């Protein structure tokens, strides 16, 4: 065990830090809208070789040799500086890796660069009203008519569909095929005739996800990714590669540090909350979880880096449910620290922000939001099934196999 970085990596870290002195932008650039500033800096990050390292240059990436430790240093330093790095959108995170692996040359050249810069927003059309955990039961229909697909049906829980230019989605192209077959992966322009987006209001009060209805929507056949009927396998393959499986524990550490600040600023029975013995223990208990999660992440990172991924499959499966549980613990503690202020509703401007909020109402919003990740991308109980079945070899639930 050696937790020191090599001289080469230490030098690399210095280099990254020097580069990051360029953020936030200065002078005239600092007066541009936030989104434009981020685009400018992201572009510089690509030129310097820090952003989109795994994406070839011809598609707008910086195409750097694989080095997990350098990747980690970049993540740490960019996070510490609050600088924009790879776009964490559904398009850049999920659609781009899919296209890189399964797309045609034309598809890659056309769709990847704007997804990376954020010029084109993508949404993910997977879930349907009856197909959540049992996603392969999806019914939204794609029927081939000449050289066009005709789409009919409905998607739901489609995050940011109201701002998206494009959707990558799964559609049933062969209604008589077996459940996991006959699904096709399609790229759908959101301005196509027959698409209707209806927002769903969240319990937080905001509008982030939507229902999307398809009524004879026509999509050119060249928008098919991979082979017709192979959509399920294609969407799974990229999920396996999703590097976010090893999550970023920095945000948890930040939230913990904010919690500690909040405890210092609140009172319990007239005494600063951070001096209350019960509250101290409760926060220390949370610190136990936060530290465990960070160190387990480090262990997984090391193992992955050495090509010993199999040794850490089990803790990797646990990351999502453990991470969301810990964030909920932090937010619940904050909510309790707020006392009566925990009743306050978030403001309109806070509803649009998913970032850190350390006002009272911001904490309330985070408390409410902390439930979202425990549901999105496979609810915690589904994750527990996976941990039980694949992690501990327990038998599968009784389910219909067809």
């Amino acid at each position: 065990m050696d937790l020191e970085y090599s001289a080469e990596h230490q030098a690399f870290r210095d280099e990254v830090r020097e580069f990051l002195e360029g953020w936030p932008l200065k002078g005239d650039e600092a007066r541009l809208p936030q989104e434009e500033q981020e685009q400018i800096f992201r572009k510089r990050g690509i030129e310097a070789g820090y952003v989109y390292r795994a994406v070839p240059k011809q598609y707008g990436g910086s195409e750097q040799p694989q080095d997990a430790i350098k990747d980690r240093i970049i993540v740490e330093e960019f996070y510490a500086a609050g600088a924009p790095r790879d776009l964490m959108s559904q398009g850049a995170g999920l659609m781009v890796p899919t296209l890189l692996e399964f797309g045609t040359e034309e598809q890659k050249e056309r769709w990847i660069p704007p997804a990376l810069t954020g010029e084109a927003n993508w949404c993910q059309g997977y879930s349907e009203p009856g197909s959540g955990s049992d996603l392969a039961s999806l019914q939204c229909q794609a029927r081939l008519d000449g050289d066009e697909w005709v789409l009919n049906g409905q998607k739901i829980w489609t995050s940011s569909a109201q701002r998206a230019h494009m959707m990558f989605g799964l559609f049933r192209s062969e209604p008589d095929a077996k459940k996991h077959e006959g699904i096709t992966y399609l790229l759908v322009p959101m301005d196509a005739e027959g698409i209707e987006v209806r927002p769903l209001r969240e319990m937080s009060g905001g509008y982030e996800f939507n229902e999307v209805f398809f009524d004879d929507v026509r999509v050119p056949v060249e928008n098919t990714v991979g082979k017709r009927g192979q959509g399920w396998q294609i969407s799974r393959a990229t999920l396996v590669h999703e590097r976010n499986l090893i999550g970023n524990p920095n945000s948890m550490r930040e939230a913990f540090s904010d919690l500690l600040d909040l405890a210092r600023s609140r009172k319990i029975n007239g005494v600063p909350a951070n001096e209350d013995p019960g509250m101290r223990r409760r926060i220390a208990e949370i610190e136990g979880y936060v530290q465990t999660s960070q160190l387990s992440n480090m262990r997984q990172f090391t193992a992955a880096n050495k090509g010993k991924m199999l040794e850490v499959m089990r803790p990797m499966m646990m990351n999502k449910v453990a991470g969301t549980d810990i964030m909920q613990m932090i937010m619940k503690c904050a909510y309790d620290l707020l006392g009566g202020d925990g009743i306050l509703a978030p403001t309109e401007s806070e509803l649009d922000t998913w970032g850190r909020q350390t006002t009272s109402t911001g904490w309330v919003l985070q408390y409410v939001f902390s439930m979202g990740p425990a549901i999105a991308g496979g609810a915690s109980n589904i994750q527990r099934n996976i941990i039980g079945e694949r992690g501990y070899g327990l038998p599968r639930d009784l389910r219909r196999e067809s």
Partner: protein
Amino acid sequence: MDFGLSEEQEMLQETIRGFAQNECPTTRLRELFDKGEGHDPALWTALAEMGIAGLIVPEEHGGAGMELLDLALVAEVLGEYAIPGPFLGHALAIRGVMLAGSAEQQAKILPDLADGSQIATAALQEGDADWTPESWTARVRGGRLTGEKTIVSHAGIADRILVGLDAGGLAWVDTRGEGVVIEDLGGIDRTRPVYRVRFEGAPAEVLEGGGGNAWQLVETAAVLLAADAFGAATKLIDIDVAYAMEREQFGQPIAQFQAIKHTIARLGTDIEPARALFWYAAHCQDAIPDEAARAASVAKAHITDRAMNAARESVELHGGYGFTWECEVQMWFKRIMLDRSLLGTPDQWRERTAVLGEY
């Protein structure tokens, strides 16, 4: 940057695992558990021959010269198989001598401990809550030790005792000498019996390193107890899995019920990631002194607490059978009880985490 075990460390664990499987399977463990002596000379000798007794003793004193992390990895496997024996106290006594003994004292004391021919233990805790060095009152005046220690593991079979003194000093005492009164307390963990030891003017040799090291010793104990509890908890989850696969109700293995599957997944998610926590705490003791105190605090509190929870749920998962003497779960349940309560409860270590973290 490498946060993982070396091949040697993996091999060390595999070797002891193999030994434990062959020499102390559950049937043998049960015999020893029922006997309640917490010691089997043949087992101890065999472990000592494998180098376990003197793992961290420098090579020039006859040990293997390994690190605290190696010691913690051994503790993990011993917890996993609930191996009875004086490993914990012996390792702490050695650590105390290495922390506080002069060069001459180390050269004199360590070789007999390194090969396991002498068994040592550590007497630190006094009253039920007086486990911090600041609260110790045992004292040496004119070479004679006076005081009372409690929850001293394996004192009944130990040849020597390392004793924590007032102001955080440490002394070395011959158990067979005059003025040492040892009383069996009837501890709940029958793999590691505990004793009260009274010193009534017992001849004692003060370790000359002085104060300041006692906390390091207590923190080493915290790390080893956490590692033991981690090993015990992972074993309990394996036992749970095996039982859930075998036990049938309503015509199917209970493992197929989500309530059971989710329980096992929850316990696993609580325990498995904490492997990295005790690794880190142990590594800090050797390599990152600035972090060592806090890492040990967090590891002891978090792991023993979560392990106890896993143990309780494991009993429940076995139904009525789980509550019987016959069910094997109790042996690990009680092992974890000791890990949790000896030298500070999770609440107490959390308060220490808060102090060290400047909450």
